[in-house]
């Protein structure tokens, strides 16, 4: 290994009773580069992440280190350092911010330690809490957080989990402009040591923060490259009905 992490997907196909939500997808996610997955609704973006995190069955190969992600169960994938968020923010509403983050670090604990109460705040939890800017809200039940804060909490949980690969599904959807910018900066800060994949519809956000973009359409990879490459790509424009990408992809 060169110290450069990556996830290499080859020929990934997800078949829902004859309907192929992903078909022969080849894509490589590299450490240190913020990789965006875009495409119209139903293109298969979420399904791709679902397949790579064990939520749906897929065929093909998805190599991460010496593991094939497609052959592992969700919790094993997570333990291997691959984390994800969901399209709808799912934090544990009745637990506090601190408890949410702490739970995410539970994997590294011995079973017996689980039966003891928490004493003090572990360093890595404190660190994650500060990185995502929720330190002052640590005793607040997660259910009362604002939408954007929940998304940050989810990212914080991935940090505590020490996820080396992060799939973020429409994380900034529904955020205000300031929140988006802050999220972008947050990603930038944590990106160097991680492989980050973001699913996004908002082209402004993509333009501002993408290092690399993969366009999915009808389950297949339509185009890949920098933001400029993608915007200039005639096939991409065609898929978006000849219209401007921004117009169509804004929900």
């Amino acid at each position: 290994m060169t110290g450069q992490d990556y996830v290499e997907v080859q020929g990934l196909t997800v078949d829902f009773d004859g309907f192929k939500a992903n078909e022969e997808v080849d894509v490589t996610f590299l450490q240190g580069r913020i990789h965006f997955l875009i495409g119209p609704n139903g293109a298969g973006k979420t399904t791709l992440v679902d397949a790579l995190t064990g939520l749906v069955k897929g065929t093909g190969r998805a190599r991460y280190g010496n593991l094939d992600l497609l052959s592992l169960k969700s919790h094993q994938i997570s333990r291997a350092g691959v984390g994800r968020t969901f399209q709808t923010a799912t934090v544990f509403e009745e637990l506090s911010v601190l408890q949410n983050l702490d739970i995410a670090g539970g994997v590294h604990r011995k079973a017996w330690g689980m039966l003891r109460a928490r004493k003090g705040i572990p360093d890595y939890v404190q660190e994650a809490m500060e990185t995502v800017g929720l330190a002052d809200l640590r005793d607040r039940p997660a259910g009362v957080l604002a939408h954007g804060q929940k998304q940050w909490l989810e990212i914080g949980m991935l940090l505590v989990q020490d996820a080396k690969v992060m799939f973020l599904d429409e994380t900034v959807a529904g955020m205000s402009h300031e929140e988006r910018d802050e999220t972008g900066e947050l990603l930038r800060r944590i990106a160097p040591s991680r492989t980050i994949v973001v699913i996004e519809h908002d082209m402004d956000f993509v333009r501002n923060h993408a290092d690399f973009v993969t366009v999915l359409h009808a389950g297949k990879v339509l185009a890949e490259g920098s933001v400029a490459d993608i915007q200039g790509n005639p096939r991409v424009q065609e898929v978006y009905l000849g219209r401007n990408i921004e117009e169509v992809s804004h929900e």
Partner: protein
Amino acid sequence: MSTPTDVESPFLPVAATPTDRRRLPRSSPRLSRDTVSLIGIGVFAVLMLLVAPAVLSDFRLNNLGKYACWAMVAVGIGLAWGRGGMLVLGQGVYFALGAYAMAMHLTLETAGPDAIPVFMILYDPLAPLPGFWEPFRSGAFTLLAVVGAPVLLAGTLGYAIFKRRVKGAYFAILSQALAVALAYLIGGTIKLTGGDTGLSDFKYFFGYDLSDPINKRMIYSITAGLLVLCLLVVWQLYRSRFGELLVATRDAEERVRFLGHDPANIKLVAYVTAAVMASIGGALFVPIAGIISPKEIGAAASIFLIAGAAFGGRATLFGPVLGALLLGYGRSSLSEQWENGWIYVLALMFILVTLLAPEGVASIPRRAAGLLGSLRRPTESRPPRNTAAKETKS
């Protein structure tokens, strides 16, 4: 999804808002919640172990012991259902395991060494003792079975069910089906288990004469002590990381999976613990009540067992215990005077509680306060709870 305009920046300190205050115990702000609960358990222990024996007659104390057995089951239900989200409609199964293990032992002890139980002699004076009865001659084996049998059964069943991700209503009905099936099985095997009439007429309890009130008082104390112990166990579980994880699993199982845990294992621990508590409750019920029959374990009985937890507040520490004690008391005092009325009261309670206070009566003051509060400060409403996470089935 609306974006509130007054959202705080993630990287700037934010002033604490009044919502925080609600989370702290009001009476003594310097004590942590855990400590307050522990003090509560202490008070409860004093009431049950010292005050009750001092003020209650033999008869009343024995009754209280019976309620305490149900309360033990309820504590487990609080853990499995309240915190773990598993609607255990059939805890009668585990109650039965403990109860029948104990009843078989007491029956054999009453019959005397090498003798076979009286009810069996009635059917066939020459029949040998069925093989599965034999080990229950030993008191030690019986005690082992009271704990071991529910671990085995709940462990296997739970493993199979949770690994297949059966949950919600399916789980509830399955567990009830098992209770009904077991009640049928016992009811239909009268020569082996006493059938619908059950097992009764126990004379001795591990050498102690059951007709002596002093010995009955001793059994009460054991029961009350074990109930307090059960409370301590869940108290520790609730404050532990496991407890947090359990609540997390209840509210968003998929999410927990992506934290690298297998939710099945988490639920299994809670389920097995609840089963053991039910079994111990059942075992002690036998010498106290003096009888065990399928009536105490079938669908209706199982529903009575869960009623206490529903009534008192399933997710709270004290709700299930107090609810079960209260319902037990209500059941015996009401059915003394108004035989059939009790069922209607129970039925009405189920309907009203689920309709008006799904978190139990303990939550009514809090909900009322919350309602008042939100009337006064209309801006500070909680966002809607994530209902999608509580899908019936996945």
